[in-house]
Protein backbone atom coordinates (compact mmCIF):
# COMPACT_ATOMS: atom_id res chain seq x y z
CA UNK A 1 0.00 0.00 0.00
CA UNK A 2 1.41 3.39 -0.98
CA UNK A 3 1.24 6.50 1.18
CA UNK A 4 -1.79 7.95 -0.58
CA UNK A 5 -3.67 4.65 -0.40
CA UNK A 6 -3.43 4.85 3.40
CA UNK A 7 -5.58 7.99 3.29
CA UNK A 8 -8.09 6.50 0.85
CA UNK A 9 -8.49 3.57 3.24
CA UNK A 10 -8.93 5.95 6.19
CA UNK A 11 -11.60 7.76 4.18
CA UNK A 12 -13.29 4.41 3.40
CA UNK A 13 -13.25 3.51 7.09
CA UNK A 14 -10.87 0.57 6.57
CA UNK A 15 -8.07 2.18 8.58
CA UNK A 16 -9.06 3.70 11.93
CA UNK A 17 -5.76 4.15 13.70
CA UNK A 18 -2.37 5.41 12.49
CA UNK A 19 1.17 5.50 13.86
CA UNK A 20 3.51 7.66 11.79
CA UNK A 21 7.23 8.41 11.98
CA UNK A 22 8.58 11.62 10.43
CA UNK A 23 5.52 11.96 8.22
CA UNK A 24 4.04 15.28 7.18
CA UNK A 25 1.34 14.52 4.59
CA UNK A 26 -0.39 17.89 5.13
CA UNK A 27 2.59 19.38 3.28
CA UNK A 28 3.92 16.56 1.16
CA UNK A 29 0.84 14.85 -0.33
CA UNK A 30 -1.35 16.27 -3.11
CA UNK A 31 -4.90 17.58 -2.69
CA UNK A 32 -4.34 18.07 1.05
CA UNK A 33 -7.94 19.10 1.76
CA UNK A 34 -8.60 15.36 1.39
CA UNK A 35 -5.63 14.54 3.66
CA UNK A 36 -7.03 16.91 6.31
CA UNK A 37 -10.44 15.22 6.19
CA UNK A 38 -8.77 11.82 6.57
CA UNK A 39 -6.62 12.91 9.52
CA UNK A 40 -9.69 14.37 11.22
CA UNK A 41 -11.59 11.15 10.63
CA UNK A 42 -8.96 8.92 12.28
CA UNK A 43 -10.14 7.52 15.60
CA UNK A 44 -6.61 7.37 16.97
CA UNK A 45 -3.43 8.93 15.60
CA UNK A 46 0.05 8.74 17.14
CA UNK A 47 2.82 10.82 15.54
CA UNK A 48 6.51 10.27 16.26
CA UNK A 49 8.45 13.33 15.17
CA UNK A 50 11.34 15.50 16.32
CA UNK A 51 9.36 18.72 15.92
CA UNK A 52 5.64 19.38 16.06
CA UNK A 53 4.99 19.37 12.33
CA UNK A 54 1.88 20.47 10.46
CA UNK A 55 0.36 16.96 10.39
CA UNK A 56 1.27 15.98 13.96
CA UNK A 57 -1.12 18.75 15.07
CA UNK A 58 -3.94 16.32 14.22
CA UNK A 59 -2.51 13.59 16.46
CA UNK A 60 -4.02 12.33 19.71
CA UNK A 61 -0.58 11.53 21.07
CA UNK A 62 2.76 12.95 19.98
CA UNK A 63 5.93 11.05 20.90
CA UNK A 64 9.08 13.18 20.63
CA UNK A 65 11.58 11.32 18.46
CA UNK A 66 15.16 12.01 17.51
CA UNK A 67 17.19 13.88 14.94
CA UNK A 68 20.00 12.20 13.03
CA UNK A 69 22.63 13.81 15.26
CA UNK A 70 20.96 12.30 18.37
CA UNK A 71 21.33 8.70 17.20
CA UNK A 72 23.86 6.52 15.42
CA UNK A 73 23.61 4.06 12.60
CA UNK A 74 24.10 3.75 8.86
CA UNK A 75 22.49 5.41 5.87
CA UNK A 76 22.64 4.25 2.23
CA UNK A 77 23.07 7.25 -0.03
CA UNK A 78 21.44 7.48 -3.45
CA UNK A 79 24.57 6.00 -5.06
CA UNK A 80 24.29 2.89 -2.84
CA UNK A 81 27.15 3.96 -0.58
CA UNK A 82 26.55 2.89 3.02
CA UNK A 83 27.90 5.56 5.39
CA UNK A 84 28.03 5.82 9.17
CA UNK A 85 26.18 8.52 11.11
CA UNK A 86 27.65 9.19 14.54
CA UNK A 87 25.80 10.52 17.54
CA UNK A 88 26.85 14.06 18.39
CA UNK A 89 24.40 15.09 21.13
CA UNK A 90 21.83 13.48 23.42
CA UNK A 91 18.10 13.83 22.78
CA UNK A 92 16.69 16.81 24.70
CA UNK A 93 13.98 16.46 27.37
CA UNK A 94 11.75 13.42 27.01
CA UNK A 95 12.71 12.80 23.39
CA UNK A 96 14.14 9.39 22.55
CA UNK A 97 15.51 7.53 19.54
CA UNK A 98 12.77 6.32 17.19
CA UNK A 99 13.91 2.67 17.45
CA UNK A 100 13.66 2.82 21.24
CA UNK A 101 10.12 4.24 21.04
CA UNK A 102 9.03 1.51 18.58
CA UNK A 103 10.48 -1.24 20.80
CA UNK A 104 8.72 0.19 23.87
CA UNK A 105 5.41 0.21 22.01
CA UNK A 106 5.98 -3.43 20.97
CA UNK A 107 6.71 -4.30 24.60
CA UNK A 108 3.60 -2.49 25.84
CA UNK A 109 1.55 -4.42 23.28
CA UNK A 110 3.11 -7.63 24.65
CA UNK A 111 4.54 -8.41 21.20
CA UNK A 112 8.26 -7.87 21.85
CA UNK A 113 9.52 -10.65 19.57
CA UNK A 114 12.04 -9.26 17.06
CA UNK A 115 11.94 -5.88 18.82
CA UNK A 116 14.47 -6.45 21.58
CA UNK A 117 17.65 -4.86 20.29
CA UNK A 118 20.02 -3.17 22.69
CA UNK A 119 21.79 -0.89 20.22
CA UNK A 120 21.70 0.39 16.62
CA UNK A 121 24.66 -1.88 15.97
CA UNK A 122 22.58 -4.94 16.85
CA UNK A 123 19.93 -3.76 14.40
CA UNK A 124 22.62 -3.37 11.74
CA UNK A 125 23.85 -6.93 12.37
CA UNK A 126 20.26 -8.09 11.77
CA UNK A 127 20.20 -6.14 8.49
CA UNK A 128 23.42 -7.89 7.44
CA UNK A 129 21.80 -11.30 7.94
CA UNK A 130 18.46 -10.30 6.42
CA UNK A 131 20.01 -8.87 3.24
CA UNK A 132 22.49 -11.70 2.67
CA UNK A 133 22.24 -13.00 -0.88
CA UNK A 134 19.92 -10.20 -1.99
CA UNK A 135 20.49 -7.42 -4.52
CA UNK A 136 21.44 -4.93 -1.80
CA UNK A 137 23.67 -7.36 0.09
CA UNK A 138 25.02 -5.84 3.34
CA UNK A 139 26.41 -9.09 4.75
CA UNK A 140 30.06 -8.17 4.12
CA UNK A 141 29.71 -4.62 5.47
CA UNK A 142 30.90 -3.89 8.99
CA UNK A 143 30.91 -0.56 10.81
CA UNK A 144 34.72 -0.78 10.91
CA UNK A 145 34.89 -1.27 7.13
CA UNK A 146 32.52 1.66 6.58
CA UNK A 147 34.65 3.97 8.72
CA UNK A 148 37.97 2.85 7.24
CA UNK A 149 36.80 3.32 3.64
CA UNK A 150 34.63 6.45 3.97
CA UNK A 151 31.64 4.27 3.16
CA UNK A 152 31.09 0.93 1.41
CA UNK A 153 28.90 0.46 -1.67
CA UNK A 154 26.40 -2.39 -1.68
CA UNK A 155 26.34 -5.20 -2.70
CA UNK A 156 29.13 -6.36 -0.41
CA UNK A 157 28.71 -10.12 0.21
CA UNK A 158 30.28 -11.93 3.15
CA UNK A 159 30.76 -15.05 1.05
CA UNK A 160 31.57 -15.56 -2.62
CA UNK A 161 28.17 -16.37 -4.22
CA UNK A 162 29.75 -18.91 -6.60
CA UNK A 163 32.25 -20.74 -4.37
CA UNK A 164 30.77 -20.07 -0.93
CA UNK A 165 34.23 -19.02 0.32
CA UNK A 166 34.28 -16.24 2.96
CA UNK A 167 35.16 -12.83 1.50
CA UNK A 168 36.10 -10.71 4.54
CA UNK A 169 38.02 -8.24 2.35
CA UNK A 170 35.25 -7.69 -0.23
CA UNK A 171 35.56 -3.97 -1.12
CA UNK A 172 31.89 -3.45 -2.00
CA UNK A 173 30.63 -2.48 -5.47
CA UNK A 174 31.22 1.18 -6.37
CA UNK A 175 29.85 0.62 -9.89
CA UNK A 176 26.88 -1.62 -10.58
CA UNK A 177 26.30 -3.73 -13.69
CA UNK A 178 29.97 -4.27 -14.58
CA UNK A 179 30.43 -6.93 -17.24
CA UNK A 180 31.21 -9.95 -15.07
CA UNK A 181 29.28 -8.88 -12.00
CA UNK A 182 27.03 -11.29 -10.13
CA UNK A 183 23.54 -10.64 -8.81
CA UNK A 184 20.96 -12.84 -7.15
CA UNK A 185 18.43 -12.56 -9.99
CA UNK A 186 20.63 -13.39 -13.00
CA UNK A 187 22.85 -15.75 -10.95
CA UNK A 188 25.84 -15.09 -13.17
CA UNK A 189 24.02 -15.13 -16.53
CA UNK A 190 24.76 -11.42 -16.98
CA UNK A 191 25.04 -8.15 -15.10
CA UNK A 192 21.38 -6.99 -15.03
CA UNK A 193 18.47 -7.88 -12.76
CA UNK A 194 16.70 -10.28 -15.12
CA UNK A 195 17.02 -14.09 -15.26
CA UNK A 196 18.94 -13.85 -18.57
CA UNK A 197 21.15 -11.08 -17.14
CA UNK A 198 20.28 -8.72 -20.00
CA UNK A 199 18.93 -5.20 -19.67
CA UNK A 200 15.56 -4.11 -21.05
CA UNK A 201 14.38 -0.93 -22.70
CA UNK A 202 10.91 -0.18 -21.40
CA UNK A 203 8.53 1.64 -23.70
CA UNK A 204 6.49 4.22 -21.82
CA UNK A 205 3.32 5.14 -23.69
CA UNK A 206 2.23 8.77 -23.40
CA UNK A 207 -0.89 9.28 -21.36
CA UNK A 208 -2.62 12.64 -21.07
CA UNK A 209 -2.56 14.13 -17.57
CA UNK A 210 -5.58 13.25 -15.43
CA UNK A 211 -6.30 16.96 -14.86
CA UNK A 212 -5.19 18.36 -18.24
CA UNK A 213 -5.34 22.00 -19.30
CA UNK A 214 -8.67 23.28 -20.64
CA UNK A 215 -10.32 26.57 -21.59
CA UNK A 216 -11.23 27.06 -17.96
CA UNK A 217 -7.79 26.11 -16.59
CA UNK A 218 -5.45 26.97 -19.47
CA UNK A 219 -2.03 26.82 -17.75
CA UNK A 220 0.09 23.97 -16.46
CA UNK A 221 0.88 24.01 -12.74
CA UNK A 222 4.07 22.19 -11.85
CA UNK A 223 5.54 21.87 -8.36
CA UNK A 224 8.95 21.01 -6.97
CA UNK A 225 11.69 22.14 -4.64
CA UNK A 226 14.08 24.98 -3.87
CA UNK A 227 17.66 24.39 -2.82
CA UNK A 228 17.39 25.84 0.69
CA UNK A 229 14.46 23.71 1.89
CA UNK A 230 14.32 19.97 2.60
CA UNK A 231 11.14 17.96 2.06
CA UNK A 232 8.18 19.32 4.08
CA UNK A 233 10.39 21.90 5.81
CA UNK A 234 9.91 20.52 9.33
CA UNK A 235 13.62 21.06 9.95
CA UNK A 236 14.61 23.69 7.41
CA UNK A 237 11.79 26.18 7.99
CA UNK A 238 13.29 26.61 11.48
CA UNK A 239 16.81 27.55 10.37
CA UNK A 240 17.22 31.30 9.95
CA UNK A 241 19.80 31.48 7.16
CA UNK A 242 17.85 28.92 5.10
CA UNK A 243 14.56 30.78 5.58
CA UNK A 244 16.33 33.97 4.52
CA UNK A 245 17.40 32.44 1.20
CA UNK A 246 13.84 31.75 0.04
CA UNK A 247 11.45 32.89 2.79
CA UNK A 248 8.16 31.79 1.26
CA UNK A 249 6.84 30.12 -1.88
CA UNK A 250 6.44 32.24 -5.01
CA UNK A 251 4.69 31.68 -8.31
CA UNK A 252 7.34 31.52 -11.00
CA UNK A 253 6.09 32.66 -14.40
CA UNK A 254 7.48 33.78 -17.75
CA UNK A 255 7.48 37.52 -18.62
CA UNK A 256 5.17 36.88 -21.59
CA UNK A 257 2.54 35.30 -19.35
CA UNK A 258 3.04 37.98 -16.72
CA UNK A 259 2.54 40.71 -19.29
CA UNK A 260 -0.64 39.13 -20.61
CA UNK A 261 -2.06 38.89 -17.07
CA UNK A 262 -0.86 42.36 -16.06
CA UNK A 263 1.34 40.94 -13.32
CA UNK A 264 4.69 42.40 -12.33
CA UNK A 265 7.51 40.75 -10.40
CA UNK A 266 6.60 40.53 -6.67
CA UNK A 267 2.87 41.22 -7.26
CA UNK A 268 0.41 39.20 -5.16
CA UNK A 269 -0.99 36.60 -7.54
CA UNK A 270 -3.70 33.96 -7.22
CA UNK A 271 -3.46 30.52 -8.80
CA UNK A 272 -6.52 28.26 -8.91
CA UNK A 273 -7.20 24.66 -9.83
CA UNK A 274 -10.32 22.52 -9.53
CA UNK A 275 -9.29 21.71 -5.95
CA UNK A 276 -8.21 24.98 -4.43
CA UNK A 277 -6.51 28.34 -4.73
CA UNK A 278 -3.41 30.02 -3.35
CA UNK A 279 -2.19 33.62 -3.25
CA UNK A 280 1.56 34.17 -3.39
CA UNK A 281 3.96 36.73 -4.78
CA UNK A 282 4.92 36.40 -8.45
CA UNK A 283 8.50 35.75 -9.53
CA UNK A 284 8.94 36.68 -13.19
CA UNK A 285 11.75 34.73 -14.88
CA UNK A 286 12.57 33.55 -18.40
CA UNK A 287 13.72 30.17 -17.09
CA UNK A 288 10.21 28.68 -17.31
CA UNK A 289 7.86 27.86 -20.19
CA UNK A 290 5.34 30.66 -20.84
CA UNK A 291 2.39 28.22 -20.54
CA UNK A 292 3.51 26.87 -17.15
CA UNK A 293 3.79 28.16 -13.60
CA UNK A 294 6.03 26.66 -10.91
CA UNK A 295 5.49 26.72 -7.14
CA UNK A 296 7.74 24.92 -4.60
CA UNK A 297 5.95 22.69 -2.08
CA UNK A 298 7.84 22.95 1.25
CA UNK A 299 5.30 25.10 3.12
CA UNK A 300 2.10 24.37 5.08
CA UNK A 301 -1.43 25.75 5.43
CA UNK A 302 -2.36 28.61 3.11
CA UNK A 303 1.16 28.57 1.66
CA UNK A 304 0.88 24.93 0.60
CA UNK A 305 0.70 24.37 -3.15
CA UNK A 306 -0.59 20.87 -2.41
CA UNK A 307 -3.97 22.50 -1.77
CA UNK A 308 -4.09 22.70 -5.59
CA UNK A 309 -2.36 19.54 -6.85
CA UNK A 310 -4.19 16.46 -8.08
CA UNK A 311 -4.19 13.12 -6.25
CA UNK A 312 -3.93 11.06 -9.45
CA UNK A 313 -1.04 8.60 -9.29
CA UNK A 314 1.24 6.84 -11.72
CA UNK A 315 -0.15 3.30 -12.04
CA UNK A 316 3.26 1.64 -11.61
CA UNK A 317 5.35 3.83 -9.33
CA UNK A 318 2.34 5.32 -7.47
CA UNK A 319 4.02 8.74 -7.55
CA UNK A 320 1.32 11.44 -7.58
CA UNK A 321 1.05 13.81 -10.55
CA UNK A 322 2.74 16.68 -8.72
CA UNK A 323 4.22 17.90 -11.97
CA UNK A 324 1.08 18.61 -13.97
CA UNK A 325 -2.43 19.82 -13.50
CA UNK A 326 -4.52 22.49 -15.21
CA UNK A 327 -4.69 25.88 -13.46
CA UNK A 328 -5.59 29.54 -14.00
CA UNK A 329 -3.80 32.60 -12.69
CA UNK A 330 -4.87 36.19 -12.00
CA UNK A 331 -3.52 39.20 -10.21
CA UNK A 332 -4.72 39.28 -6.58
CA UNK A 333 -6.51 42.29 -5.09
CA UNK A 334 -4.00 42.49 -2.27
CA UNK A 335 -2.00 40.45 0.21
CA UNK A 336 -3.73 37.37 1.65
CA UNK A 337 -4.55 37.21 5.36
CA UNK A 338 -1.69 34.84 6.14
CA UNK A 339 0.87 37.38 4.91
CA UNK A 340 0.84 39.20 8.26
CA UNK A 341 0.88 36.03 10.41
CA UNK A 342 3.98 34.08 11.42
CA UNK A 343 4.14 30.32 10.90
CA UNK A 344 3.73 28.33 14.16
CA UNK A 345 7.44 27.55 14.46
CA UNK A 346 8.40 31.20 13.94
Amino acid sequence: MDAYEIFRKIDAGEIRGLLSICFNPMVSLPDNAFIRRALEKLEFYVAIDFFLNDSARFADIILPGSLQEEDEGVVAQVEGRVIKINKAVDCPGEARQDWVIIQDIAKALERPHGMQFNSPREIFEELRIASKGGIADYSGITWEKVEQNMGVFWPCPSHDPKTGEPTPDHPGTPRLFERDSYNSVAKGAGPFYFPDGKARFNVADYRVPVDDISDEYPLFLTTGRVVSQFLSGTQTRRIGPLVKQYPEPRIEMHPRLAEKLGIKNQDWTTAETRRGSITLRAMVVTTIRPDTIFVPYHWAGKKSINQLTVAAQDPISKIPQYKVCGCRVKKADGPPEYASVLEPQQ
Partner: protein
Amino acid sequence: MKPDNLHFFIDPNRCIGCQACVQACSECDTHRGESMIHLEYVDRSHSVQTVPVICMHCDQPTCAEVCPADAIKRTGDGVVQSARKPRCIACGNCVMACPFGVPEVYEDRQLMMKCDMCYDRSSVGKKPMCATVCPSQALFFGTREQIEQMRPQSTPVNAFQFGNQTITTQVFTMVPKASAQQRPLVDVTAAMNEEAQARSPRDVSLSVIGNRTATATVADPFAEVEV
Protein backbone atom coordinates in the same frame (compact mmCIF):
# COMPACT_ATOMS: atom_id res chain seq x y z
CA MET B 1 51.37 32.33 7.63
CA LYS B 2 49.51 30.72 4.74
CA PRO B 3 51.85 28.20 3.05
CA ASP B 4 53.23 29.68 -0.20
CA ASN B 5 52.26 26.72 -2.34
CA LEU B 6 48.56 26.76 -1.41
CA HIS B 7 46.21 29.00 -3.38
CA PHE B 8 42.49 29.63 -3.74
CA PHE B 9 40.95 28.90 -7.16
CA ILE B 10 37.40 29.92 -8.16
CA ASP B 11 35.73 28.21 -11.11
CA PRO B 12 32.31 29.92 -11.40
CA ASN B 13 31.31 27.66 -14.32
CA ARG B 14 31.23 24.77 -11.90
CA CYS B 15 28.96 26.48 -9.34
CA ILE B 16 25.63 24.67 -8.96
CA GLY B 17 24.08 27.16 -6.52
CA CYS B 18 23.74 24.67 -3.66
CA GLN B 19 24.59 27.30 -1.01
CA ALA B 20 26.70 24.82 0.99
CA CYS B 21 29.55 27.39 1.10
CA VAL B 22 27.21 30.05 2.49
CA GLN B 23 25.92 27.75 5.23
CA ALA B 24 29.40 26.52 6.15
CA CYS B 25 30.73 30.06 6.31
CA SER B 26 27.85 31.33 8.45
CA GLU B 27 28.49 28.62 11.06
CA CYS B 28 32.05 29.75 11.77
CA ASP B 29 32.77 30.93 15.32
CA THR B 30 34.70 34.03 14.28
CA HIS B 31 31.67 35.64 12.61
CA ARG B 32 28.84 33.44 13.82
CA GLY B 33 25.55 33.67 11.96
CA GLU B 34 26.88 35.75 9.09
CA SER B 35 28.21 34.39 5.84
CA MET B 36 31.26 36.18 4.48
CA ILE B 37 30.83 34.48 1.12
CA HIS B 38 28.19 35.88 -1.22
CA LEU B 39 26.51 33.48 -3.61
CA GLU B 40 25.03 35.64 -6.33
CA TYR B 41 22.71 34.89 -9.20
CA VAL B 42 24.29 36.35 -12.34
CA ASP B 43 20.81 37.44 -13.45
CA ARG B 44 17.98 35.38 -11.94
CA SER B 45 15.36 36.77 -14.32
CA HIS B 46 17.16 35.04 -17.20
CA SER B 47 19.22 32.22 -15.73
CA VAL B 48 19.69 30.04 -12.69
CA GLN B 49 23.50 30.38 -12.97
CA THR B 50 25.14 31.37 -9.71
CA VAL B 51 28.62 32.57 -8.85
CA PRO B 52 30.41 32.42 -5.50
CA VAL B 53 32.06 35.68 -4.45
CA ILE B 54 34.86 35.58 -1.88
CA CYS B 55 37.50 38.20 -1.08
CA MET B 56 40.02 38.12 -3.92
CA HIS B 57 42.83 39.33 -1.63
CA CYS B 58 44.23 42.05 -3.89
CA ASP B 59 47.97 42.69 -3.97
CA GLN B 60 47.15 46.39 -3.54
CA PRO B 61 43.81 46.24 -1.72
CA THR B 62 41.60 49.20 -2.66
CA CYS B 63 39.57 48.64 0.50
CA ALA B 64 42.66 49.25 2.65
CA GLU B 65 43.78 52.22 0.53
CA VAL B 66 40.49 54.08 1.06
CA CYS B 67 40.16 53.24 4.77
CA PRO B 68 40.53 56.48 6.79
CA ALA B 69 41.11 54.55 10.02
CA ASP B 70 43.76 52.14 8.69
CA ALA B 71 41.59 49.25 9.90
CA ILE B 72 42.25 46.84 7.03
CA LYS B 73 45.60 45.05 7.09
CA ARG B 74 47.27 42.76 4.61
CA THR B 75 49.48 40.12 6.20
CA GLY B 76 52.87 39.16 4.75
CA ASP B 77 51.40 36.09 3.09
CA GLY B 78 49.10 38.25 0.95
CA VAL B 79 45.87 37.69 2.87
CA VAL B 80 43.77 40.84 3.33
CA GLN B 81 42.33 40.64 6.84
CA SER B 82 38.84 41.66 7.95
CA ALA B 83 38.53 45.09 9.61
CA ARG B 84 40.26 45.44 12.96
CA LYS B 85 37.45 46.03 15.42
CA PRO B 86 39.06 48.77 17.57
CA ARG B 87 39.85 50.84 14.49
CA CYS B 88 36.88 50.35 12.14
CA ILE B 89 34.48 53.32 12.18
CA ALA B 90 31.94 51.62 9.89
CA CYS B 91 32.15 54.46 7.35
CA GLY B 92 31.60 52.08 4.45
CA ASN B 93 34.32 53.52 2.21
CA CYS B 94 35.63 50.02 1.60
CA VAL B 95 32.15 48.83 0.64
CA MET B 96 31.98 51.51 -2.06
CA ALA B 97 35.55 51.03 -3.23
CA CYS B 98 35.97 47.27 -3.49
CA PRO B 99 35.82 46.39 -7.18
CA PHE B 100 34.53 42.90 -6.37
CA GLY B 101 31.73 43.96 -3.99
CA VAL B 102 33.06 41.96 -1.05
CA PRO B 103 33.07 44.02 2.22
CA GLU B 104 29.84 44.65 4.09
CA VAL B 105 29.18 46.99 7.02
CA TYR B 106 27.12 45.44 9.83
CA GLU B 107 25.23 48.40 11.24
CA ASP B 108 24.17 46.60 14.43
CA ARG B 109 27.80 46.18 15.53
CA GLN B 110 29.27 49.15 13.65
CA LEU B 111 31.86 47.01 11.94
CA MET B 112 32.93 45.97 8.47
CA MET B 113 33.38 42.23 8.12
CA LYS B 114 34.63 40.34 5.09
CA CYS B 115 36.17 37.07 3.99
CA ASP B 116 39.67 36.54 5.41
CA MET B 117 40.23 33.20 3.65
CA CYS B 118 39.47 31.56 7.05
CA TYR B 119 42.81 32.83 8.29
CA ASP B 120 42.66 30.64 11.41
CA ARG B 121 42.56 27.64 9.06
CA SER B 122 44.47 28.67 5.92
CA SER B 123 47.38 30.04 7.98
CA VAL B 124 48.03 26.50 9.21
CA GLY B 125 47.55 24.92 5.78
CA LYS B 126 43.90 23.91 6.18
CA LYS B 127 41.29 24.60 3.51
CA PRO B 128 38.88 27.51 4.09
CA MET B 129 35.45 26.22 5.17
CA CYS B 130 33.74 27.00 1.86
CA ALA B 131 36.33 24.99 -0.07
CA THR B 132 35.90 22.01 2.26
CA VAL B 133 32.17 21.73 1.51
CA CYS B 134 31.93 22.76 -2.18
CA PRO B 135 30.71 19.58 -3.93
CA SER B 136 31.78 20.64 -7.44
CA GLN B 137 35.15 22.29 -6.74
CA ALA B 138 33.86 25.66 -7.89
CA LEU B 139 35.82 26.70 -4.80
CA PHE B 140 39.14 24.88 -4.57
CA PHE B 141 42.06 25.41 -2.20
CA GLY B 142 45.27 23.59 -3.03
CA THR B 143 48.39 23.67 -5.16
CA ARG B 144 48.81 24.84 -8.75
CA GLU B 145 49.84 21.32 -9.69
CA GLN B 146 46.59 19.93 -8.33
CA ILE B 147 44.38 22.41 -10.18
CA GLU B 148 46.30 21.95 -13.43
CA GLN B 149 45.80 18.22 -13.20
CA MET B 150 42.09 18.57 -12.33
CA ARG B 151 41.30 21.23 -14.96
CA PRO B 152 43.53 20.65 -17.99
CA GLN B 153 41.36 22.89 -20.21
CA SER B 154 41.57 25.92 -17.94
CA THR B 155 44.22 28.29 -16.67
CA PRO B 156 44.22 30.14 -13.35
CA VAL B 157 44.15 33.92 -13.94
CA ASN B 158 44.63 36.55 -11.25
CA ALA B 159 44.58 39.83 -13.20
CA PHE B 160 41.38 41.83 -13.62
CA GLN B 161 40.77 44.96 -15.67
CA PHE B 162 38.39 47.61 -14.30
CA GLY B 163 38.46 50.51 -16.79
CA ASN B 164 42.00 51.87 -16.57
CA GLN B 165 42.83 49.99 -13.42
CA THR B 166 44.46 46.55 -13.46
CA ILE B 167 44.12 44.58 -10.27
CA THR B 168 46.14 41.52 -9.38
CA THR B 169 44.96 39.20 -6.66
CA GLN B 170 46.04 36.26 -4.52
CA VAL B 171 42.88 34.36 -5.51
CA PHE B 172 42.69 32.87 -8.99
CA THR B 173 39.74 32.56 -11.37
CA MET B 174 39.72 29.64 -13.82
CA VAL B 175 39.38 30.72 -17.49
CA PRO B 176 39.53 28.68 -20.71
CA LYS B 177 43.14 27.98 -21.67
CA ALA B 178 42.95 29.33 -25.24
CA SER B 179 41.56 32.68 -24.11
CA ALA B 180 44.05 33.05 -21.31
CA GLN B 181 47.01 32.45 -23.63
CA GLN B 182 45.94 35.35 -25.82
CA ARG B 183 45.66 37.80 -22.94
CA PRO B 184 45.68 36.54 -19.36
CA LEU B 185 43.27 39.14 -18.04
CA VAL B 186 39.58 39.22 -17.12
CA ASP B 187 38.07 42.46 -18.47
CA VAL B 188 35.32 43.02 -15.93
CA THR B 189 34.06 46.41 -17.13
CA ALA B 190 33.66 45.21 -20.70
CA ALA B 191 31.65 42.23 -19.51
CA MET B 192 29.31 44.47 -17.51
CA ASN B 193 28.59 46.71 -20.50
CA GLU B 194 27.90 43.78 -22.75
CA GLU B 195 25.40 42.29 -20.38
CA ALA B 196 23.30 45.46 -20.44
CA GLN B 197 23.24 45.49 -24.25
CA ALA B 198 22.31 41.87 -24.51
CA ARG B 199 19.30 42.21 -22.25
CA SER B 200 16.46 42.76 -24.71
CA PRO B 201 17.46 41.08 -27.97
CA ARG B 202 18.71 37.76 -26.80
CA ASP B 203 22.17 38.21 -28.29
CA VAL B 204 24.96 37.19 -26.00
CA SER B 205 28.44 38.35 -26.88
CA LEU B 206 31.39 37.46 -24.75
CA SER B 207 34.52 39.51 -24.58
CA VAL B 208 35.22 38.78 -20.95
CA ILE B 209 38.71 37.58 -21.67
CA GLY B 210 41.13 39.94 -23.34
CA ASN B 211 39.90 41.25 -26.68
CA ARG B 212 38.45 38.00 -27.95
CA THR B 213 34.86 38.52 -28.94
CA ALA B 214 32.42 35.78 -29.69
CA THR B 215 28.81 36.56 -30.52
CA ALA B 216 26.05 34.04 -30.40
CA THR B 217 22.37 34.59 -30.93
CA VAL B 218 20.46 32.59 -28.37
CA ALA B 219 17.06 31.76 -29.75
CA ASP B 220 14.14 32.03 -27.33
CA PRO B 221 13.69 28.36 -26.39
CA PHE B 222 9.98 29.02 -25.82
CA ALA B 223 9.30 30.95 -29.05
CA GLU B 224 6.79 28.30 -30.16
CA VAL B 225 4.91 28.21 -26.87
CA GLU B 226 1.61 30.07 -26.97
CA VAL B 227 0.29 31.89 -23.95
